């Protein structure tokens, strides 16, 4: 029986199950195969906040959402078309997000009385009408897997662990994906345990076959290769890895070796982990005793001639405040990555927010200017990171790079740069034999760098106010001069950053400004609305301090300017301060969850209505 293959433009699937059900692997495999098929895609995982919440409970639900498309997309999608629910808790926590009329594939084998009780359910939602309006596809995956693998030597528990590959097989059939890349992956992953690889491969194929054979689905779907992807080599990249790769790249482009001083903290830890695995790239990673030691060792690393880096998140960023001042006054290059999470204090450590902007720009004692840039997507994170390295090294300054929880763990296909095309980063390093004044500046107000080990350049630096020679100076005029020089140097970075280009046509009267990860949802929303006949302009700001030239002229063209932010309006405050003649409006969401394009469209439509 061959089923009709329906062509779809884009699809959103969410895999949801217990933490132990392997949903992240399932999602990851589906993403890889989807990338290979040539779709554009974006993914986002949703972990429980506990390490191992009790099995079967709502707190223990782990999810993975993938959005894939035949055209450019910018977010992991708002409402899933399909929800795969491995147990009642996963179902009940997730079904409300589903599109009207969406499909739910439910593993009925895990809907026993006990399972329902663990999920705090009195009745079975598959039967009690809860899911009216959705298309439910019940499959007893447990049972099927046990049957297929009944001859296996594996324990029952181990056999049941193959559930997720069975599910994956069904989805591969449904969306016409090839099995090969997953089979290859299983072979290499379980190279030393071939019996496990085999069992999973069997389960995968069986799931595929079941979907093919039975009348489970109305039809089969196809999402064509993305027509908008530029030619090139791609890889699927997760935000934190993009930053790690960007750091290594930035250092290399400057001819420097990186030294990362860090302390684990969710959701920034992965960057430390990725860089720890790059030892053959001569990356030094120091897992220090705390965040203060993290940044201080990075400062020491920079002093000694490496590119100092430190990575952290909210509370850790707070701890680095004092040392940031030292980096400012000594004028050493330093990249500080803050993967923001929901605050204040410990807040919601596994949830997204962009509420550290004001702190990044203003949060230090004394006049201590630091450039701030923010990345928008996993792919953009690479570029922003290289840019952060450029500014740090070319201007001898600490630079704060803001990411967030959503970018950190999200993925998208990343078009790999041609290595030779990447522009070099200039260093300003004093040489043996030259007369060296540590705080003598060039026309850009930048001082030269001299690392220990070079004969004749011996000098002292420190946290006290200094004169050109680096000596301590209590001279009032010198302090005023130095304060202005430090400020002007940072403001001078503007000369090296482009004015961002708004998208949208000439006649638009509504400007939406994005910074950081809401970029994707805002871009989706505005593009969709423009396709639907609205006229909205979108402007994305990568450089947040200093602000690029030319913004005033852009802002003046619009009747209304709205800034959606996952905070209480921080960029609005900064822009108001910098462009007081312009009226900026906030649209805020501070729920530890990203904006959806849907929600933005609704709000933008309201605004257009009002205009």
């Amino acid at each position, binding site marked *: 029986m061959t089923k009709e293959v329906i062509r779809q433009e884009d699809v959103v699937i969410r895999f949801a199950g217990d933490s132990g059900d392997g949903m992240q692997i399932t999602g990851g495999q589906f993403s890889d195969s989807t*990338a*290979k098929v*040539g779709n554009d895609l974006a993914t986002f995982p949703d972990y429980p906040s506990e390490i191992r919440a009790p099995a079967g409970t709502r707190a223990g639900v782990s999810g993975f959402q993938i959005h894939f498309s035949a055209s450019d997309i910018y977010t992991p999608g708002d409402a899933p078309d399909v929800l795969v629910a491995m147990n009642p808790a996963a179902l009940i926590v997730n079904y409300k997000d589903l599109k009207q009329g969406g499909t739910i594939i439910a593993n009925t084998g895990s809907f026993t009385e006990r399972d329902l009780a663990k999920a705090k359910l009195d009745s079975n939602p598959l039967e009690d009408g809860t899911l009216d309006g959705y298309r439910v596809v019940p499959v007893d995956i447990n049972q099927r897997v046990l049957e297929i693998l009944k001859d296996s030597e594996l324990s029952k528990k181990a056999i049941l662990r193959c559930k997720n590959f069975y599910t994956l097989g069904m989805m591969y059939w449904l969306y016409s994906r090839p099995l090969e890349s997953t089979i290859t992956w299983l072979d290499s992953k379980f190279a030393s345990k071939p019996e496990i690889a085999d069992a999973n491969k069997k389960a995968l194929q069986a799931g595929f076959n079941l979907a093919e054979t039975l009348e489970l689905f109305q039809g089969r779907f196809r999402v064509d*290769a*993305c027509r908008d992807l*530029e*030619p*090139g*080599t*791609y*890889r699927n990249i997760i935000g934190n890895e993009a930053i790690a*790769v960007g750091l*290594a*790249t930035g250092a290399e482009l400057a001819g420097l070796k990186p030294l990362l001083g860090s302390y684990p903290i969710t959701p920034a830890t992965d960057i430390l982990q990725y860089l720890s695995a*790059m*030892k*053959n*790239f*001569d*990356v*030094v990673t*120091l897992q*220090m*005793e*705390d965040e203060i*030691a993290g940044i*201080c*060792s*990075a*400062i*020491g*690393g*920079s*002093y*000694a*001639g*490496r590119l100092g880096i430190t990575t952290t998140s909210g509370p850790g960023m707070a701890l680095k405040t*004092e*040392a940031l001042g*030292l980096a400012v006054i*000594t004028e050493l290059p330093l990249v500080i990555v803050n993967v923001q999470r929901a605050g204040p204090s410990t807040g919601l450590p596994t949830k997204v927010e962009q509420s550290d902007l004001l702190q990044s720009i203003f949060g230090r004692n004394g006049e201590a200017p630091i450039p701030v840039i923010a990345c928008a997507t996993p792919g953009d994170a690479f570029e922003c990171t290289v840019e952060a390295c450029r500014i740090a090294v070319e201007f001898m300054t600490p630079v704060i790079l803001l990411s967030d929880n959503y970018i950190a763990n999200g993925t998208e296909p990343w*078009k*790999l*740069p041609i*290595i030779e095309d*990447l522009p070099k980063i200039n260093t300003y390093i004093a040489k043996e034999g030259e007369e060296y004044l540590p705080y003598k500046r060039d026309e850009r107000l930048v001082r030269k760098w001299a*690392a*220990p*080990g*070079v*004969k*004749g*350049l*011996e000098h*002292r*630096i*420190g*946290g006290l106010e200094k004169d050109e020679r680096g*000596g*301590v100076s209590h001279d009032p005029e010198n302090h005023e001069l130095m304060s202005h020089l430090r400020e002007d140097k940072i403001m001078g970075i503007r000369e090296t950053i482009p004015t961002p280009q708004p998208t949208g046509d000439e006649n638009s009267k509504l400007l939406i400004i994005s910074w950081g990860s809401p970029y994707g949802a805002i871009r989706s929303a505005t593009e969709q609305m423009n396709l639907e006949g609205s006229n909205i302009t979108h402007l994305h700001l990568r450089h947040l301090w200093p602000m690029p030239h030319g913004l005033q002229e852009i802002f003046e063209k619009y009747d209304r300017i709205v800034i959606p932010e996952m905070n209480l309006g921080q960029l609005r405050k900064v822009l108001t301060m910098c462009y007081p003649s312009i009226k900026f409006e906030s649209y805020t969401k501070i729920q530890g969850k990203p904006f959806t394009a849907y929600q933005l469209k609704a709000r933008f439509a309201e605004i257009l209505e009002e205009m």
Partner: protein
Amino acid sequence: MSDLNVLKPKDLKSDQEVRWCPGCGDYAILNSVQKTLAGMGIPKENMVMVSGIGCSSRFPYYMDTYGFHSIHGRANAIATGVKSANPDLSVWIITGDGDGLSIGGNHMIHSLRRNVDLKIILFNNRIYGLTKGQYSPTTPIGTRTKTSPVGSVDRPFNPIQLALGAGASFVARTIDTKPKHMASVLEAAAAHKGSAFVEVLQNCVIFNDGAWDQWTSKANRDENTVELVDGQPMIYGKDKDKGISFDSCHANTVSADEASVWTLEHNSPVPAFVASQLDHMPGLPIPIGVMRANDEPVYDEDVHAQIAQEIEKNGKGTLKDIIYAGDTWVVK
């Protein structure tokens, strides 16, 4: 500095005027460090002095080497970065009882634990000098200071014990007024591979004058200090008639001929700990000299050994390796 790389102490003097109070014990330490470092055969450009904040921490300004006068308590963390960035450097930390043991206590114990190859000189004057006289974590209980007007209630650290407890591989103590002894201890520290923790009993003439006199003044020194010398019996007293013997878990004072021999040849910190307890016991002298010196894995060496090994194993990574990693595909 001579071309032959033979340094004289004056080659290590910077042009900055030394600004400690006249009579401060810090001067003697500066001289001693300049003398010791000049004689070690280390190229001047490889010397780095890192300090925190405090009177003592002004030290790097007075050395014509690379120097970093950083922020309060963080010298050890910064120096860990310096040394890990470039293990060829000879990295010295100058710190005080406030800088290194109060606010900087955590970085201190962790750098000792890791055994980063840093030479740490702790100027212990039992007071916060730069902020004008508050009690520090080494101030004895009951001391009246500006912040303890009726006497401090904090029990002090014994810095030697703290260092030993943290797993320090080299621990020593010396006295600002004993330049020769100080030089010998600093030389031993410089020669040690790994963290070397040196406590210097230092006099702050202004805010805590005579804090160490009961042990170190000319009058008391002979009776109240015992110099530990590797392979020598632990004897002391003006007439060298007294000795220290260790029996099960305790040190006692005995006649000189019964003194135990002090030896550094053991990889247990216990003997050093037993010795460090001496001055907690009424009537026993304070020990000075090298109290522990044991070879242990050195952090910065191992960090770079792993890098070398991974390069050896996987080849030196290129940008291409990192960027074009994992599953890639081509869109045409």
